[in-house]
């Protein structure tokens, strides 16, 4: 299984749409079910939205990954924006999603299997998520 790496520059709301479309296409190519591809596309949409809302620009990297006995998709959302001051708060439900703020990181964590965040004030944020094919 070799599905290459795709980088999508995120500079505007239109790029959110193209990032999630590319993510869905890659997920399908990797053999994910259409339901899982929807979850992945939704997570990518939220991550790209955070970039546009908080950092204005950044990029989403999509990559097929091979585990010991399974195939997965890796999504890296990175920006050089203001960073997240309180990561623990940002990962708490209710701080995010339904309100006006966006973020939605707890939701993204639920949509995917693995979730990692690195953020430094004034240096930027990188969110790395993975989902494994069932």
């Amino acid at each position, binding site marked *: 299984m070799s599905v290459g790496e795709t980088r999508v520059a995120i500079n505007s709301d239109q790029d959110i749409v193209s990032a999630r479309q590319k993510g869905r296409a890659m997920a399908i190519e990797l053999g994910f079910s259409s339901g899982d591809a*929807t979850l992945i596309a*939704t997570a990518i*949409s939220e991550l790209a939205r955070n970039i546009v809302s908080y950092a204005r620009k950044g990029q989403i990297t999509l990559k097929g990954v091979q585990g010991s006995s399974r195939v997965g998709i890796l999504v890296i959302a990175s920006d050089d924006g203001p960073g997240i001051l309180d990561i623990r708060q940002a990962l708490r439900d209710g701080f995010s*999603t339904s309100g006006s703020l966006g973020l939605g990181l707890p*939701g993204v964590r639920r949509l995917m299997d693995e979730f990692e965040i690195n953020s430094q004030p004034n240096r930027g944020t990188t969110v790395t998520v993975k989902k494994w094919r069932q």
Partner: protein
Amino acid sequence: MEVPILKQGAVLIATFQAALSDADLNQLRMGLVQQVVKFRSRAVIVDVTAMDVMDSFASRTLREIAHMIRLRGAETVIVGIQPEVAFAMVQLGLTLEGVATALDLEEGLAYLNEKFKTTN
């Protein structure tokens, strides 16, 4: 991307496509509310059958559309949320609280007919 808005009697029907950007959604929100005023519509059906992703912005916009239209004294029904999309929305913690939903366009129209009957 233009979202077609169909006028059927007192009901407006807006059909969403898959790849709507935030700007498209904002434009649609304004367009729908303006048309509700222009045609004195009593209800709006938003058909999201083709939408493959409903993220936080899209759900918030739908909620806002429904609330603005309610302030005009009209009803909004969201129809056609796909099972996979519904699943992803629940995982994300998104709700459409206070907004009527129906299985598809037909059910949405039936819901409105019932509603108009009882309020008349």
